[in-house]
């Protein structure tokens, strides 16, 4: 054997050994994730192609469930509504979170850590109760209505703020606030302040340097904030159920019904897959347009 092959062999053996050392550690959590996440997701895909035949499960593959979803207006409407609500929640949450993150990053001074702490405290209340408390705030004799009435601003309690999509948007924009503030804050922290000074010295106005320097550099944070909020909210079950009323129900509520009362797990699985694919598609589209925006900014 020539020296070269020996070196080559020993480097391969070293690589295999290193791989084994890594896998000895990560193997167990990987296997757990594989068995309890990947395998179940594949089974869910399989199930979505089967049919519930009263009490029995018909395992001949068919597209019946998907045909059902796209031919019944109620399913299409629920998915559409979930997407629209999630998009509105995402835009609202990010728009509200940005100035907050900007304030902490640029004016927080020595108290940045305390500010961040201050923002996370309200979110250590039980999620269920936080959403439920919005019902008390927005309700017929709730905080908002009794407050406005005692100020003589309105005569009749406002009814458009509870049990509809507006209430869902308010409650979700609240629930996901810290998840949007933190990534934007991190991105703003990374901005080299001397670049802003350079823009100012070169004659850019405050607004122009914000649009041309701060915003593009903060974009990675804004993108992750948007995705962190958008992806889970589309599958939110609690909020629409508690404050959404009849017109604010979302697709997760229908998925739950299919798995319990309606006893049609395959249709539920197909609904879950359809919403998951919708989320994926929108997120990818969003990332694509963001990349184009950033390229345009840098050119």
């Amino acid at each position, binding site marked *: 054997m020539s020296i070269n092959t020996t070196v080559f062999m020993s480097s391969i053996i070293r690589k295999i050994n290193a791989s084994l050392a890594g896998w000895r550690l990560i193997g167990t959590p990987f296997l757990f994730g594989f068995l309890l996440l990947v395998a179940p997701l594949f089974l869910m895909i399989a199930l979505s192609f089967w049919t519930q035949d009263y009490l029995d499960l018909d395992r001949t593959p068919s597209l019946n469930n998907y045909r059902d979803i796209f031919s019944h207006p109620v399913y299409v409407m629920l998915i559409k509504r979930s997407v629209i609500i999630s998009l509105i929640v995402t835009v609202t949450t990010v728009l509200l979170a940005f100035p907050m993150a900007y304030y902490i990053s640029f004016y927080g001074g020595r108290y940045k850590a305390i500010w961040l702490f201050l923002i996370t405290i*309200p979110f*250590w209340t039980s999620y269920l109760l936080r959403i439920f408390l919005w019902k008390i705030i927005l309700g017929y004799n709730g905080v908002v209505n009794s407050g406005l009435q005692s100020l003589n601003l309105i005569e009749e309690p406002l009814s458009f703020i509870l049990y509809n999509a507006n209430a869902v948007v308010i409650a979700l924009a609240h629930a996901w606030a810290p998840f949007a503030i933190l990534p934007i804050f991190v991105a703003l922290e990374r901005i080299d302040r001397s670049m802003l000074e350079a823009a100012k010295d070169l004659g850019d106005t405050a607004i122009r340097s914000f649009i041309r320097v701060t915003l593009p550099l903060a974009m990675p944070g804004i993108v992750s904030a948007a995705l962190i909020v958008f992806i889970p909210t589309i599958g939110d079950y609690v909020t629409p159920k508690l404050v959404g009323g009849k017109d604010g129900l979302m697709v997760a509520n229908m998925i739950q019904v299919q798995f319990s009362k309606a006893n049609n797990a395959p249709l539920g699985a197909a609904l879950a897959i359809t919403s998951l694919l919708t989320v994926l598609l929108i997120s990818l589209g969003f990332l694509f347009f963001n990349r184009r925006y950033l390229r345009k900014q840098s050119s």
Partner: protein
Amino acid sequence: MKKPPLLLFSFVIIYLVFLYAPVMLLPIFAFNDSSIIAFPLSGFTADWFVGLLSENTLHRALKNSLIIAITAAVISTCFGILTARAMARHNFLGKRPSFGLIMAPLFLPEIIIGVALLIVLIQLGISLNIWTVILGHILICTPFSVSILYSAFNNMDKSIEEASLDLGETRFGTFRRVIFPLVKPGVIASLLICFTISLDEFVIAFFLTGVEPTLPVYIWAQLRFPSKLPSIMALGFILLLLSLILLAIFEYYRRRSETLIGKQPS
């Protein structure tokens, strides 16, 4: 420090009021002497807290939730240690995909995880109980544990370990006597965060619990009965205080962790 523009500062104050609005109501109604949750308030009482002592279903739910949260926290943190260590110190085939798989639950809607697990359990004919909830909670807690522990393992000075090995300590001995003490604050922080997440998690527990309720599942059931609401407010207030205490301990250990590995605490 520069002074912020007035507009920005007013926005920040209003936004903080919005963020704190629901939590502020919790103590108000927990101590309000009326069975109806509405304004105007009628008087001060601690009866709702006393009433919690005689709720047997609540005690069972609390016991279940504690068993689930402690087990899930311990196992997720073990998984977190294994994953963080592998990611920080080893280069191996399939490193990125296996890491992606372990972190994936962070980016999936909880209902998808709950439903997917439910399907498997039904198909395998496994009956639902607190162990099925534990499995689900380990899945969603592990990514949090990994993100806390990764920086602890990654920022640790490699030469300390090497010194220990060179001086004749075994691999296990090095882990026990050198590495573990250095990452211990991170481990405690991870245990606390996983415990809190599991204790508060509703959707997965709702899908995977059988006849044994967890605390959030119990609260969910009580929300339907208007007469139960004040005691739920009292319960919520206790839970908030508990989480804040855990959070304070977590913050303490996170800072310790950063000091131990030689980073300026942030």
